[in-house]
């Protein structure tokens, strides 16, 4: 069966939902501290990939979720129970402003796909009512 508009928009919606989940965990973990650079949280990013069967008709899927290259920031805080021997802690490598922008963009693109599906549904129902 060929890929329908419902497949295209539906799978795009679930991909955007994965993106929203990564943004949520990034924002939730922003500001968390760790005793080592390796143990510090790094922002997660989904990698989108087009899935198509014939030219021009393609939906999207999440190929992988990777940790971003944003470096955790070192802060001197000897009183912190997590501090290492030098009295340093590592703050999660999350760019808060960028994550908020990402969240808004995700919500907008999710809405676009909902709109596409709604339009396709109305048109399909109208077509089914042809001749009545």
């Amino acid at each position, binding site marked *: 069966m060929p*890929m*329908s*508009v419902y497949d*295209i*928009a539906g*799978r*795009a919606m679930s991909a*955007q939902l994965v*993106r929203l989940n990564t943004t949520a965990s990034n924002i939730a973990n922003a500001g968390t501290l760790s005793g080592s650079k390796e143990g510090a949280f790094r922002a997660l990013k989904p990698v*989108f*990939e*087009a899935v*198509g069967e014939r*030219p*021009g*008709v*393609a*939906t*999207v899927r999440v190929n992988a979720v990777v940790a971003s290259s944003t470096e955790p920031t070192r802060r001197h805080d000897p009183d912190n129970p997590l501090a290492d021997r030098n009295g340093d802690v590592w703050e999660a490598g999350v760019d808060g402003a960028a994550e908020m922008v990402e969240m808004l*963009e995700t919500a907008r*693109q999710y809405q*676009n*796909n909902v709109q*596409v599906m709604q*339009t*396709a549904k109305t*048109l399909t129902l*109208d*077509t089914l009512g*042809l*001749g009545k």
Partner: protein
Amino acid sequence: MPDQLFGIHGASLALRSQRLAMLASNIANAATPNYKARDIDFGRALDMAAGSGDAGAAAAAATAYRVPTQSSLDGNTVELSTEQTEFAENAVGYRTTLSFLQSRVATVMQAIKGE
């Protein structure tokens, strides 16, 4: 025979539906790196479909890449404002064709019933 009954509107509806899927693909891939948006040149496709009667082949032949007004760093050529406008225009076109078909069906039904 069905072509004579519905004229150009049968091919038009098929092309509108294929274009709907293509524009939906563009909107779905708005955030996919390196995705190149494509669209069907509807006027050209309809001319070809009217000549050959094969809407699928006409749609494939009239498909072209979208030229973005501004290129983006990740190589994606989807511009949501353009795609949404084209999508809305295409949906209205589909509706229009549908109402042409509807009135044609109504006319023929009236002739059959002889009311």
